[in-house]
């Protein structure tokens, strides 16, 4: 669902008054993108559901305090999600970035072209293992770029960095990912 800045401002005003219809629309808008962002990093359905839920529930307090723009709302949700992801990773002993040998120790099954189910699962697992070896900043960038389908310009605005830095990060992230994909493959 794509809303204009004005439409979203209207929704936020109504949400501040706890208008359930407006709250529902905001949830419809944000849940899928927050869930995808988290799942991209964790590859864990249950944890992703819970974290997306917590991040969105936190918005209620933000509405009470007043939130002035879509940019601030997006930024708040991103930070809230990152915080919960980091907390989960600490609790479960998953560092943001892991060594190649550790990832390999999780015994990636070999592909089997006669078994498409195993093949898709293998491809997905392989990409996840490679992603986990990137540093957290690169992981978050790729999650914004490919799970939320944001442009580098959008990511620069959202994260408060300049565009040249973001494009350099994009280059480094894909370079590292390629290297780790080859290692895992």
């Amino acid at each position: 669902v794509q809303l204009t800045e004005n439409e979203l401002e209207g929704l936020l005003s109504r949400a501040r008054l706890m208008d359930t219809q407006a709250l529902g629309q905001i949830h419809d808008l944000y849940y899928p993108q927050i869930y995808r962002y988290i799942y991209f990093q964790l590859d864990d359905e249950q944890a992703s559901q819970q974290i997306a839920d917590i991040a969105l529930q936190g918005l209620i307090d933000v509405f009470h305090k007043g939130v002035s723009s879509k940019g601030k709302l997006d930024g708040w949700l991103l930070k809230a999600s990152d915080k919960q992801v980091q907390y989960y990773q600490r609790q479960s002993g998953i560092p943001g970035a892991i060594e190649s040998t550790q990832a390999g120790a999780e015994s990636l099954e070999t592909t089997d072209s006669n078994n498409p189910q195993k093949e898709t699962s293998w491809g997905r697992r392989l990409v996840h293992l490679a992603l986990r070896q990137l540093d957290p900043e690169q992981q978050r960038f790729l999650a914004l770029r490919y799970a939320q389908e944001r442009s580098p310009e959008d990511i620069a605005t959202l994260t408060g960095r300049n565009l040249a830095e973001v494009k350099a990060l994009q280059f480094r992230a894909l370079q590292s990912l390629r290297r780790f994909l080859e290692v895992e493959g």
Partner: protein
Amino acid sequence: MDDTQVRALDVCLQRMQTGKDLQQVLEFYPQFSDQLRPLLEAAEVVQWYGKIIQVPEIAQAKSRSRFTQAELSPPVAAPTPAREPSGWIKIISLALALLVILVGTWSIIAARGALPGDFLYPMKIALERTRLQLTNDPLRRLGMEQAYDEERLGEVKSLLQTPRPESVQFAGGLSQMGGSNWQVSGIRVVVPADAQIIGNVEEGIYVIVEGTVQPDGSVLAHRLQPREFDLSGKLQNFLPDRLTVAGIPIEVSVETLVHGSPQVGNPVHVSAYLLLDGNFQARLVEAADQIEE
């Protein structure tokens, strides 16, 4: 990494998002092709990974319900790593897991039979590309490429029976090219005057056809080019009429271009056409030292 390459990568990624394929976008930056190709391939893989994430509708609905009645609901506990469940939780989890497996299996089976225009078709293509990108053995890779070509051909033949006006891209043997009606692996391909023909397209070789399925059961071509296979490996022999690379015999003709000085025992790269009789014919043979330049 320099700024020019960083900018070039970004432009290539933007162009890929508009539907251009990897080869097309690399043509804008031939000087960086070797540096950018692996990164763009990684981008294709991670893009596929991002697209296969399915948002769970039931969990979303439950979260929505809590969200819209937030002031009435108790706060949600932060997630913790999985603990050993007990009793009825195990039964429900098992049932949900079974459901997920069934839905997942259905998706994968459906993707396997997906045709151009189907929702799951991009997943099918992305998965094939992932497997190709991660296969280094030249013989195995060649077998996979040919199997995927056969798959594309089968998809187009299925579409022609419908026929759905979908955009298609497939490779097949060009057995007849008289007038505007060509025959490519048994498929009638209509080639209008304004169709783009790239490279040396001629009868007797495999070609790539990009076009649209027509209601009369033909494919209207927009673009045609020879189907080339990239074969790299150790040069095992190099005779006037044939050579062997990584165990793959390849015919050599007077039109074959040779770059550098390929030596038996050294690595080479060969770009080859596939002929209707199943043999390969070298278009270009490059010595490894030439490739590095």
